[in-house]
C-alpha cells in the first residue's frame, strides 16, 4: 500500500498494519499530532495510564502474556525519561516492546528547547536499537524496522523518537510488506552437526539435567510443546529459571522446581552433580550459578541460545548451539527418535533415586502457624483456589516474588509475568493491567509486596477507568522483606530503613480509587477472603497481613556454591549471621 499522509498518520497506520490493537500512552506537547490521529480512528485502542512507567510495564505484561510486542506512546523530555525503567526492564528480560516518543522540532534539537532531552542518547544503552527520525522519507521504513528488530532474534525494546515537525510533514507511506533489514538477520536454525553432538552427549549421559529459561517462552508455544516432548522422550529431570516457569508443567514428575538462589534443593544439587547439562534458552545468570568456580564442576554443557553473546559469557560450554529454541528442539527430537536413542536406563534409575533423596528434604517446607498467616501459606491457598481457573500471575519484586515462584505452580507458558533481570519494584500492578487488557475474561492476579505496590499504585486509577478486574494480592509484612532478610544476613540485623512506618490503609485506598478493598489477618479467614476477591468483578486491593519477619528459603548465600544452601527448617540465627563471607558481601 502506498499513500500520501502526515507523519502522525503514518504512525497510527503502521501500528494498525503491524496488528497492534492496544497502545499504552500518555499525551504531551510533542506527541499532540499523533494523539489527534488516535482520536479520529478506531483501529488502535489507546489506554491512558497515570505515569509513563505504568505504560511501559503494562506493555511488557501485554507482550509476555501474548507473545506480541507491547507498544507505548509518550511525549518528549519527562515522558521519555519516565519510560527508561521499563525499557531497561524489557531489555534485561528480552521482552519485545516498541516505544514511540515525541521530540522537539528538528530545528530546535540541541538548543535545550522546552521538554527536550537526548532521548536516543539516554535510551541507547537500554534498548535493543533506537532511531531519531529526521526526514519524513525515513519514517515508514524506520517504523517497520522497529517492529522487526523488537520481535526477531532475541526480542527486546526499541525506541522511535519522532520530532514534532516530522509528525506534521506529509510524505508517502509504504506498508510493511517485504521489509528486509540491511544488517540485522538473526539465525534461527541451529547447526546440525552441533545438534548431533548434543544428542550424542545426551544419549550417553548418566546424570543429565535440563536447565531451561525465558528463551523457551520467547520462542513461542511450539517451543514449550517440543520441550515437553524431548523431556518425556529422554526421561531426564528438568529445572527452570524464574523466567522460564510454565514452559514445562510443574505438576509433572520430572519437574524439579525452580533452581538458583531461592530454588529447590533437588534442582540445585542436580545442577551441581550432573554430568550433562542441557541449557535451553537460559543465560547462566549470577542468581543461577552462584560461585562460578563451584558451578556444576563436572558436567559437559550444551547451550541453546539465539544470541551468541549469551554463550560463553560467564560459563564455558562444550556444545554451543546458536538458534531458536523451537527450531533446535525440533531437530533434537527428530534426531533422538531417528537414531533410536535410549538413555542409559540403569544409570537413570540411580540418578533419579539420588534426586528423590534430595526431594525428601522438602526444601520448601515452612512452619505453619494458627495465629498469623505465613506468606507461603497465602500463596499456597491462592494457588489452590485458582488452579482450576484461567489464571495469569504477575509479581512485584522481593520475598513475595520468590514465594510466588516457589508455591504457585504453572502448567502453561505465558502465564507468569515477573521482573527477573532488573528486579523492578512496581512492575506487577501495571503489568497486570496489560495482561488483563489482552485477556479480558481471565483472572489476573498481581502477587505484590507492601513496599513495591506503592511504586506504581496510581495505576489502580487506570484499572478503574477501563473496568479491569485485576486482583492485587499484597503479602503485607510491613517490611521491605527481602532487604530486611539481607540486613539480617549481612549487617548484624540492623534494619536500616527497611520498615515502612506509615503504610496507607490499603482498604481505604482501594475505596478512594473506586476499587474493592479486602483485608485478611487470620489463616482461617483466608479462603473466604480469596473467594471474595475472585468473585468481585472489579479491581481489588487485597491487604493480606502476613508474618512480618519470615525469611525466604532455601537460599544460596552470595558467593557460595549450589551445595552450600541454607534450608529454612535447619537454619539457626548463627548460621544466618555467618552465612556470607567478606568476598560474598561485595556481591548483590
Amino acid at each position, binding site marked *: 500500500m502506498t499513500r500520501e499522509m502526515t507523519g502522525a498518520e503514518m504512525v497510527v497506520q503502521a501500528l494498525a498494519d503491524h496488528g497492534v490493537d492496544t497502545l499504552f500512552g500518555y499525551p504531551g506537547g510533542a506527541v499532540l499530532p499523533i494523539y489527534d490521529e488516535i482520536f479520529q480512528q478506531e483501529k488502535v485502542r489507546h489506554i491512558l495510564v497515570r505515569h509513563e512507567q505504568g505504560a511501559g510495564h503494562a506493555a511488557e505484561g501485554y507482550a509476555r502474556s501474548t507473545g506480541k510486542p507491547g507498544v507505548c506512546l509518550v511525549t518528549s523530555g519527562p515522558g521519555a525519561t519516565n519510560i527508561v525503567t521499563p525499557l531497561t526492564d524489557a531489555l534485561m528480560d528480552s521482552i519485545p516492546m516498541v516505544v514511540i516518543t515525541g521530540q522537539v522540532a528538528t530545528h530546535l534539537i540541541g538548543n535545550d528547547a522546552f521538554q527536550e532531552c537526548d532521548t536516543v542518547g539516554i535510551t541507547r544503552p537500554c534498548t535493543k536499537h533506537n532511531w531519531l527520525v529526521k526526514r519524513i522519507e525515513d519514517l515508514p521504513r524506520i517504523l517497520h524496522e522497529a517492529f522487526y528488530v523488537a520481535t526477531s532474534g532475541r526480542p527486546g525494546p526499541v525506541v522511535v523518537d519522532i520530532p514534532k515537525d516530522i509528525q506534521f510533514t506529509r510524505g508517502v507511506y509504504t506498508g510493511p510488506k517485504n521489509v528486509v533489514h*540491511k544488517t540485522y538477520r538473526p539465525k534461527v536454525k541451529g547447526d546440525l552437526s552441533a545438534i548431533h553432538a548434543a544428542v550424542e552427549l545426551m544419549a550417553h549421559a548418566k546424570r543429565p539435567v535440563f536447565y531451561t529459561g525465558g528463551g523457551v517462552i520467547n520462542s513461542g508455544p511450539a517451543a514449550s510443546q517440543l520441550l515437553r516432548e524431548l523431556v518425556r522422550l529422554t526421561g531426564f529431570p528438568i529445572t527452570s529459571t524464574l523466567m522460564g516457569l510454565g514452559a514445562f508443567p510443574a505438576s509433572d514428575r520430572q519437574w524439579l522446581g525452580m533452581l538458583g538462589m531461592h530454588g529447590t534443593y533437588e534442582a540445585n544439587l542436580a545442577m551441581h552433580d550432573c554430568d550433562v547439562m542441557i541449557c535451553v534458552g537460559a543465560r547462566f545468570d549470577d542468581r543461577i550459578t552462584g560461585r562460578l568456580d563451584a558451578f556444576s564442576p563436572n558436567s559437559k554443557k550444551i547451550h541453546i541460545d539465539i544470541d551468541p553473546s549469551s554463550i560463553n559469557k560467564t560459563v564455558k560450554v562444550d556444545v554451543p548451539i546458536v538458534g531458536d529454541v523451537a527450531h533446535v528442539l525440533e531437530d533434537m527430537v527428530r534426531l533422538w527418535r531417528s537414531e533410536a536413542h535410549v538413555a542409559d536406563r540403569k544409570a537413570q534409575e540411580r540418578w533419579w533415586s539420588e534426586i528423590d533423596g534430595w526431594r525428601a528434604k522438602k526444601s520448601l517446607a515452612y512452619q505453619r502457624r494458627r495465629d498469623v498467616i505465613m506468606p507461603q501459606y497465602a500463596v499456597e491457598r491462592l494457588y489452590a483456589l485458582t488452579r482450576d481457573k484461567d489464571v495469569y500471575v504477575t509479581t512485584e519484586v522481593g520475598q513475595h516474588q520468590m514465594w510466588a515462584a516457589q508455591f504457585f505452580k504453572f502448567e502453561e507458558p505465558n502465564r507468569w509475568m515477573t521482573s527477573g533481570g532488573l528486579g523492578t519494584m512496581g512492575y506487577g500492578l501495571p503489568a497486570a493491567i496489560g495482561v488483563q487488557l489482552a485477556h479480558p475474561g481471565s483472572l489476573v492476579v498481581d502477587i505484590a509486596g507492601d513496599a513495591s505496590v506503592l511504586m506504581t499504585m496510581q495505576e489502580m486509577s487506570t484499572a478503574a477507568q477501563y473496568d479491569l478486574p485485576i486482583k492485587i494480592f499484597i503479602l503485607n509484612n510491613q517490611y521491605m522483606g527481602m532487604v530486611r532478610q539481607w540486613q539480617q544476613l549481612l549487617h548484624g540485623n540492623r534494619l536500616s530503613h527497611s520498615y515502612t512506618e506509615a503504610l496507607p490503609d490499603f482498604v481505604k485506598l482501594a475505596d478512594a480509587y473506586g476499587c474493592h478493598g479486602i483485608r485478611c489477618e487470620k489463616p482461617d479467614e483466608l479462603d473466604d477472603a480469596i473467594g471474595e476477591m475472585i468473585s468481585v468483578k472489579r479491581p481489588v486491593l487485597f491487604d493480606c497481613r502476613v508474618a512480618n519477619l519470615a525469611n525466604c528459603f532455601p537460599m544460596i548465600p552470595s*558467593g557460595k556454591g549450589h551445595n552450600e544452601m541454607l534450608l529454612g527448617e535447619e537454619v539457626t540465627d548463627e548460621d544466618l549471621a555467618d552465612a556470607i563471607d567478606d568476598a560474598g558481601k561485595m556481591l548483590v
Partner: protein
Amino acid sequence: MLMKVEEKKSPMRAPDPSEKHTLSVVVDNEPGVLARVIGLFSGRGYNIDSLTVSETQHDKHVSRITIVTTGAPMVIEQIKSQLARLVPVHRVADLTVGGAAIERELALVKLIGRGEARVEALRLAQAFAVKTVDATLESFVFEITGLTDEIDRFIDLMAALGKVEVSRTGIAAIARGAEGL
C-alpha cells in the same frame, strides 16, 4: 584515539592472561553508530587501546572501525559477539586470529626547539624515514607512519630533544592476502 578503561576485576575468578586483539568492525554509517560501539565498551568495562573510524564505501554509507583491545580470551569472544549483535553492524573480523595482519598508524609530531637539537632531530627523522611536513626557525612537524611501537620510539627520541606535541590516528589494519571482509 587512545583510551584506557580500568581493567575488569571479578572477586570470584582468577584473571586469565590478557591478549591483545585487533578487530575490524564494518558498520552502516548511520547517526550514533560510533556512540553505540564506544558505549558498549565503556558500559561493559572492556578496554579500548586504540580506535579508528572512517567511511570506507561512501556510496553505501559503510564505515570501518578498527579497534585494538585487550582482555582474557573469553572476554575477547564476548566483545566480538556483543559487537556483532549491534543492529547496524555488518561484520566483525578478528584480524589477530587470522594470522599477522598489516597494522599501521600515522602520527604528526611537532618538535619545538632551537640549536643543536634541530640537527639531531633531522638526522633521526631520516633514520626513521620520516617526512618533514612543516618547518619554522623554532619547530618541525614530522609525519611518521608505521607500527605503534616504532612511533612510540620515535616520539620518545623527539621528547629528549625538546618540547613535543603529538597527534596520532590510532591503528588502521587489514588482513593479508586475497581474502576480504
